[in-house]
């Protein structure tokens, strides 16, 4: 077990280095540089461009730029091209903004999907099953921002709820209860909307997994020995059906960054996804690279986590 862990961690770290080199190369080789963002500005003279390029190390060969990036990241000196602010605290602050949205969405998705999916599996072929199947496919097929826009209009018109940003302007001096409720509404609407697709996908998985398990011999045995249906479904079937979902839990982590670009853009939520989007627009290489790096690290960590969890819950799995 411990040897397995040590070996995988070393492998993953190596992989991370490879990924950072590849993404660095891809981003630097693609056309377009920070010095060219404002190409139409007549005040930008050739020597200004040269000075900008020099101060960002853009005039050096790629491998040296990579060394600079790693060195700056390690010492915490890495600065954004756009505003000169240190990158790591910037990302950390945006991470703290993204976290509540991510947690809320995840909780909604995981609490709603299981009852929906299990019920559909138990009532296979019924009207409920067919209608949830259809609704789930529809939700999967709608572009996220389209649904959000339509629902925002509806929510704002009917319930008069605030939706855009972290909090309403001008409520800083209101009393505590108003502020808290304001934050809660601002959090609730985006999380419900980004959860909708998640619920559709996950409840389909739950249904498929339950159907698979309900067809197994041990479920028939449990029924044959006269156990009541609840015990069969929740004690025998569900416990085994849950196993693959443990793996999915670890794979959620990278969604923190890449899954949220659209929704953060729709709701003007200043999180990691929006930070990445702004950085891409401004060709802010240090921020793009560091975000990519963090996302890859989260993915690798998520895979490791799910491997370990799987070994913990399923005694048939041996890590070696």
């Amino acid at each position: 077990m411990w040897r397995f862990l040590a070996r995988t961690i070393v492998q993953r770290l190596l992989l991370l280095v490879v990924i950072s080199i590849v993404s660095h190369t891809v981003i630097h080789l693609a056309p377009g540089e920070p010095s060219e963002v404002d190409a139409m500005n007549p005040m930008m003279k050739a020597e200004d461009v040269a000075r900008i390029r020099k101060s960002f190390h853009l005039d050096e060969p790629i491998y040296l730029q990579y060394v600079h990036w790693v060195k700056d990241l390690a010492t915490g000196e890495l600065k954004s091209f756009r505003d000169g602010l240190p990158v790591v605290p910037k990302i950390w602050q945006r991470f703290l903004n993204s976290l509540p949205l991510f947690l809320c969405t995840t909780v909604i998705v995981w609490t709603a999907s299981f009852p929906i999916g299990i019920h559909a599996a138990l009532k296979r072929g019924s009207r409920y099953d067919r209608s949830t199947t259809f609704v789930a496919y529809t939700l999967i097929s709608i572009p996220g921002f389209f649904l959000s826009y339509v629902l925002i209009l509806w929510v704002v018109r009917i319930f008069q709820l605030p939706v855009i940003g972290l909090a309403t302007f001008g409520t800083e001096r209101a009393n505590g209860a108003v502020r808290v409720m304001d934050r809660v509404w601002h959090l609730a609407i985006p999380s419900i909307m980004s959860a909708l697709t998640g619920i559709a996908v996950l409840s389909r998985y739950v249904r498929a997994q339950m159907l698979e398990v309900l067809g197994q011999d041990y479920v028939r045995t449990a029924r044959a020995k006269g156990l009541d249906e609840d015990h069969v479904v929740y004690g025998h079937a569900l416990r085994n059906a849950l196993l693959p979902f443990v793996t999915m839990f670890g794979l959620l982590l990278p969604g923190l960054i890449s899954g949220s670009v659209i929704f953060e853009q729709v709701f003007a939520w200043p999180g990691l996804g929006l930070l990445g989007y702004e950085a891409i627009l401004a060709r802010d290489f240090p921020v793009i690279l560091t975000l990519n790096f963090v996302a890859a690290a989260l993915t690798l960590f998520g895979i490791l986590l799910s491997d370990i969890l799987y070994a913990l819950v399923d005694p048939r799995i041996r890590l070696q």
Partner: protein
Amino acid sequence: MSVPVGPAPAIEALAAPHADAEALGIAETPAQQLWRTFRKDRLAMLGLYALCTLLAVALIGHLLTSWWVLFDPTTVRLPDKLLPPFSTASSALSAELMPPFHAYPFGTDELGRNVFARMLQGAFVSLSVGIVAVSISLGIGITVGGLAGFYGERKLGPLSIDSLLMRFTDVVLCFPTFFLILTVVALLPPSIYNIMIVIGITSWMSTARFVRAEFLALREQDFVTAAKALGLSEGRIIFRHMMPNAMAPVLVSATINVAHAILTESALSFLGFGVRPPYATWGNILADGRSYIFDAPWLFLIPGAAILLVVLAFNLVGEGLRDALNPKLRKRVG
């Protein structure tokens, strides 16, 4: 002179083994069996009908918009801007600017362009973005997966080809896909081909894994050993004998990936990195329409509904195929 009556015995000869085989239950080719199971799935059939209609619409639309001048989706008619659906063209337009039948079935946009014509053109572009992107990803995925599965045991230096290719797949899987697409598309010069290519090269990983898994299983099967014993070339074994047997999961994931690619394109358009004018895609009509969501909701709702329909159709067909190809389910269904 009597000529023996030809057809009758021939039909009999053809029909007889057929009936025999039916009695044995082996009358159907795998494709027929697939179709029989698929046909029972009503949602999937609905999706298939929708897809066929859309394909026809896209093809006819492409012909109409490129050959019929009046249908030109780029014609700007400023007197007629932001007209609601089913409105008639104003009389201020000159004869050569008149839309076909003097009507705008889907209304007009902020420049007075005919939304119906734009949607027709967009149907072709959107579908081709999806299909070309998926073809690229299939090409890469099948090559990587096939090489890893078939030649996996050969060594290339210290590592086997299999572990080399699969570690590479893992590396690519670790990139945050949408973020990577966004980065590359934002940095590359804007062109519809770049978007197809970028979506294609960021979505081949699951195909590669499926193909590799199938190949690993097939490699040990008797018919492959037999083919090798017959002295067939490796290319023939791979493409003629193994590939058709490995296609089932690939087909399913390809169908669903087309849906994904169309959604990705619309998301990119929303963020402002989509297909640029003069090409109209459903994604960028939708993304442009959101600025007029209060004044001209049809500019937003029509492309949104269209995307929903086509993606839904692809998803339903994909899931129907998955069910029909799953032997366990097939037994249960009939």
